[in-house]
């Protein structure tokens, strides 16, 4: 029983991190039709800058941790906004070239991170409470998972409120459904594109800091590894669907935890789940109809 609870909560904690990466990816794809390979780079950049700030302010203090979260989100947001504005937007509506650009950027920037921070993992420490455990139903759950879950829920609520309550949110929702009709109403969707990249980048940067605490390290490949799971999550959840991304994140991560524990092949279980979803529901759990 305690094992099940532990796997469940750590699974949801991992799902929280997946969600922070996948939410932006899914919205970017839904609105712009762009598969953003550079999304993992936003995450890694957030994680490294967060780590640098925390190290300077005292990694074990709460102030240092809070600052690292803030800086991580900010770093991801700025990097993403610049990427959209200066690279992706130059190739407006040319989706394949846009994907290629993000692939090239990811390649170049990961190499740059290698050069700056070295290829070896940097080990992370946070406030001592974070690495202690809390006992729930007999399971000793690492506290950092709770932090990840709470922050992911906060991000989810914030994005939902933004999408439901603001004009830009409305433009984004409408654009995911039918981008060309939005432009035919006289709206310049490019602003919404930059915005959605920025939001996605902030979520990814935040996810980077949390991931580095959950895994205990940060390395230049951190984002690329998570990115692949985030891709799987977005396909399973349905491209363009925020709710789908949230549900699929938890589903994928929990399945992965259980399969890892009982079978040893968590990654395969996830890929099998992906294959099943693609065979039975090609547009994903909550996706709009997939078009090329």
């Amino acid at each position, binding site marked *: 029983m305690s094992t099940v609870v532990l796997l469940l909560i750590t699974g949801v904690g991992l799902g929280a991190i997946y969600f922070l990466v996948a939410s932006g990816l899914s919205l970017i794809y839904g609105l712009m039709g762009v598969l953003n390979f550079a999304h993992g780079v936003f995450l890694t950049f957030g994680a490294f800058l967060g780590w640098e700030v925390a190290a300077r302010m005292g990694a074990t203090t709460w102030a240092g941790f809070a600052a690292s979260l803030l800086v991580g989100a900010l770093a991801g947001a700025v990097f993403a906004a610049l990427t959209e504005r200066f690279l992706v937007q130059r190739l407006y509506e040319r989706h394949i070239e846009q994907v290629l650009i993000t692939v090239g950027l990811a390649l170049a920037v990961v190499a740059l991170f290698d050069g700056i921070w070295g290829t070896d993992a940097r080990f992370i420490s946070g406030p001592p409470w974070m690495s202690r455990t809390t006992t729930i139903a007999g399971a000793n759950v690492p506290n950092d998972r709770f932090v990840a879950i709470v922050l992911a829920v906060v991000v989810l609520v914030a994005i939902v409120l933004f999408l439901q309550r603001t004009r830009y949110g409305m433009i984004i*929702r409408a654009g995911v459904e039918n981008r060309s009709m939005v432009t035919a109403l006289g709206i310049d969707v490019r602003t919404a594109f930059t915005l959605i990249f920025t939001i996605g980048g902030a979520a990814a940067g935040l996810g980077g800091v949390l991931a580095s605490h959950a895994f205990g390290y940060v390395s230049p490949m951190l984002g690329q590894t998570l990115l692949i799971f985030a891709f799987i999550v977005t396909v399973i959840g349905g491209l363009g669907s925020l709710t789908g991304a949230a549900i699929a994140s938890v589903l994928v991560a929990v399945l992965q935890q259980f399969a890892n524990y009982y079978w040893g092949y968590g990654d395969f279980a996830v890929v099998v789940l992906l294959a099943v979803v693609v065979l039975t529901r090609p547009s994903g759990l909550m996706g709009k109809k997939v078009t090329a």
Partner: protein
Amino acid sequence: MTSSPPSRDAATVGAGPTARPTAPVLLVRDLQAHVAGQQVVEHVDLQVAPTGVTALLGRNGVGKTSTIKAVMGLIGRSGTIELDGEDISTLPTFRIAGRGVGYVPEDREVFSGLTVTENLRLAERRGSEHRYDLVYELFPELEQRGAQAAGTLSGGQQQMVSLARALLNDNRVLLIDEPTKGLAPRLVTEVAEALARAAEVAPVLLVEQNLQVVRDLARHVVVLTDGRSVHHGDASDFLDDPVATQRLLGVHGGTDPAGAA
């Protein structure tokens, strides 16, 4: 009501639009357009008169929708497209709409996940007044169903949302593509009435299969065949010519109800 046209246009149109009431609001010359690597509009010339309804007719698949999309900049196009004498053939879609081109697409294209009110709010254009009074007077149902998701509306109600989005703003011209497609006869009448009111506010380029509606509303017609404009002229003259309607539309003018297909 509209922003005054730049001086360059005053020169081309003479002493400005008011002095030449017959100058077309929209002028299309030698339009070509392509979709998915295929040329679907070969050569279209058309003019939209400064008042009233100009109908764009033709059998299924001749390129009516594509012509309208090309004017909106939604598909690749080349040729001359002038709005009030100003070239809009290279502008991006949102700027074309911003200059006062209202668009009601063939399949309504309401945002199904947004509420009716949100659909209308999204259509509000900056620098234009928003005529909710007119819209709600024409379609009182939309006011009652404001909080309903547009995707759950009936086809007729969705058509109203789509028309309302275009009527909400001050427009120089309205491009309306088959507004009565698939509607019950009573709704066809209702939509036709709304179109008549719309035409009082702004000139309309109307694609319509229901020739009775065309007869009631349109003053001019342009007829397409295989991506080319082949006939321009007075609407009733054309509809009264059984040979021409039979040849170009495959129907007898005015007698055949909704949709020859």
